[in-house]
């Protein structure tokens, strides 16, 4: 039997246009475009290549964290520790590299491994004990915070060797300078967007978030899958640590503290459901840009930064409300 003889009219994939309109990213995308339009009309500096390059630079750290956060939230989990784990990773990389006891690339590898280790620990506790992700990562937030301050001895670490900050260097694109880190972050988003929508692994992440028992009954190995997701997220926090150092040029023990929640904000603004199983990293990319555009635009308008925080908070509550209402409607 061939597919054409079946009674299903639309076994073809829905058209791209229809997918965009019905996708959960449609709302966030519209919000982003409206915000861009608004700031373009109200400020002169907003709509310039240099400003957009700046926005991407400003969001690449929280964006990379938010990729890991998206993976975890898709499984119906949450990670409160991501920014703090990143801070510890950045201190490990900076200190090792600055002391010169190991080559810079080894320092970077160690930083990624340490952050991956935190992810692994989170995953093991969530899966094997099992404990709620909220509690595990709340505890890990404190552990990583303390280790950051103990290991750094409260000192900001500067005089870092070149390779550690290489991602902060720029190349010209037309009249605009772009950092390699921005490109790298965008590449990560594309990589994970592809993995989530075009590989078995991606399908399994969604299935796990939908219904863990159903995933198990369908023969998915839910335990290594879950632990793997938390570990992958940890490695992404390590990459974020590298991006952070390359952007600031120092290892700062005070860094990352607002990023724990900012990453969740970006994920939620991007239309990913906190209940798991629904959402995408492309949505998160839009969510990250929304946060970045609002911060940037309001700054250009001369609005004090505390009001930027206020507006971000309102946006999050709005986004979760929309998620909740649309879920109710789907029933």
């Amino acid at each position, binding site marked *: *039997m*061939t*597919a054409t*003889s*079946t*009674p*299903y*009219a*639309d*076994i*073809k*994939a*829905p058209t791209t246009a229809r997918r965009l309109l019905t996708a959960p990213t449609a709302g966030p995308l519209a919000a982003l475009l409206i915000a861009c339009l608004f700031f373009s009309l109200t400020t002169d500096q907003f709509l310039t290549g240099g400003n957009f390059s700046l926005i991407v630079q400003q969001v690449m750290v929280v964006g990379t964290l938010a990729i890991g956060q998206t993976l975890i939230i898709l499984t119906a989990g949450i990670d409160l520790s991501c920014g703090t784990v990143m801070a510890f990773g950045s201190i490990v990389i900076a200190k090792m590299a600055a002391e010169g006891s190991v080559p810079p690339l080894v320092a970077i590898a160690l930083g990624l491994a340490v952050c991956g280790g935190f992810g692994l620990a989170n995953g093991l506790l969530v899966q094997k004990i099992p404990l709620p992700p909220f509690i595990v990562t709340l505890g890990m937030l404190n552990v990583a915070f303390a280790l950051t301050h103990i290991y750094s001895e409260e000192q900001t670490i500067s005089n870092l060797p070149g390779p550690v900050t290489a991602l902060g260097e720029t190349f010209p694109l037309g009249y605009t300078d772009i950092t390699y880190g921005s490109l790298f972050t965008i590449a990560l988003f594309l990589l994970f967007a*592809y*993995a989530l929508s*075009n*590989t*078995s*692994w991606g*399908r*399994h992440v*969604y*299935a796990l978030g*939908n*219904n863990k*028992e*159903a*995933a*198990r*009954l*369908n*023969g*998915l*190995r839910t335990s290594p899958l879950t632990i793997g997701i938390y570990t992958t997220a940890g490695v992404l926090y390590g990459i974020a640590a590298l991006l952070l150092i390359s952007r600031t040029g120092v290892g700062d023990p005070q860094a990352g503290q607002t990023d724990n929640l900012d990453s969740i904000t970006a994920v939620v603004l991007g239309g990913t459901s906190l209940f798991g*199983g*629904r959402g995408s990293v492309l949505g998160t990319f839009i969510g990250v840009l929304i946060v970045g555009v609002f911060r940037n635009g309001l700054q250009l308008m001369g609005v004090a930064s505390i009001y930027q925080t206020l507006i971000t908070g309102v946006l999050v509550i709005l986004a979760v409300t929309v998620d909740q209402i649309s879920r109710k409607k*789907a*029933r």
Partner: protein
Amino acid sequence: MTATAPSPVLQARGLVKRYGHVTAIDGADFDLLPGEVLAVIGDNGAGKTSLIKALTGALVPDAGEIRLNGEPIQFSGPQSARSHGIETVYQDLAVAASMDIASNMFLGRELRRPGLLGNAFRMLDKKRMRQEAAEHMADLKIGLRSLTQAVETLSGGQRQAVAVARAVAWARSVVVMDEPTAALGVKESGQVLDLIRRVRDKGMPVVLISHNMPHVFEIADRIHVHRLGRRAAVIKPSDYSMAEVVAIMTGALTVDDAGGTVVADSDAAKAAGVQAN
């Protein structure tokens, strides 16, 4: 029983499963013969679902032995039963609600693109999965307008159809269905029963858990009556009336070794209008 009885495809002896103080399976035996439709019936909470979960790797029994084609086997999980060709429609369906029908159908056994895209980039062959899913669903002839809609947007009966189609599509040695017609209308139930017959006609045995006595009597070759966590009797539907089978299920009648019935609870038996034979 005759001496030439064929050896069971799937067999269990003395299965036990406890949840705290509750003994869900209490020394249960089970025999599924080649090519038969075996109905499993019993009151709510009798332990039918627990029994088939043990038989399909979804739970690991505390004690007892399972044999597949005569060989002792221990399923480490649902995956290991599936790799032996055993497919199950679970009572709660085990579907991923936000994913579409084709994705559910191929969950855990996704198809990859041929060549480099599939091997190096692990790219899924979404088109082929949609086409094959469409073919399997068409086999069921259950009204579905679209295969790209999320399972959560389907009616309860349509969801059940998806779960049934998935199991039948993948089974290689045994199909197990835990109340597959519970949410279905008359027409759709008839289609599932037809499907079960077609599976049997291909020579594959089917285990059917059902509370619907007319369905059971219509389709079953043998009936396994489950009571209080263990097998109370195995009978042929032609040898007993529905009232008698219900009486066995509730414990009013018991079946002796010779296949005759014995009144175990005379009041209950009288109330049910059955007597020993």
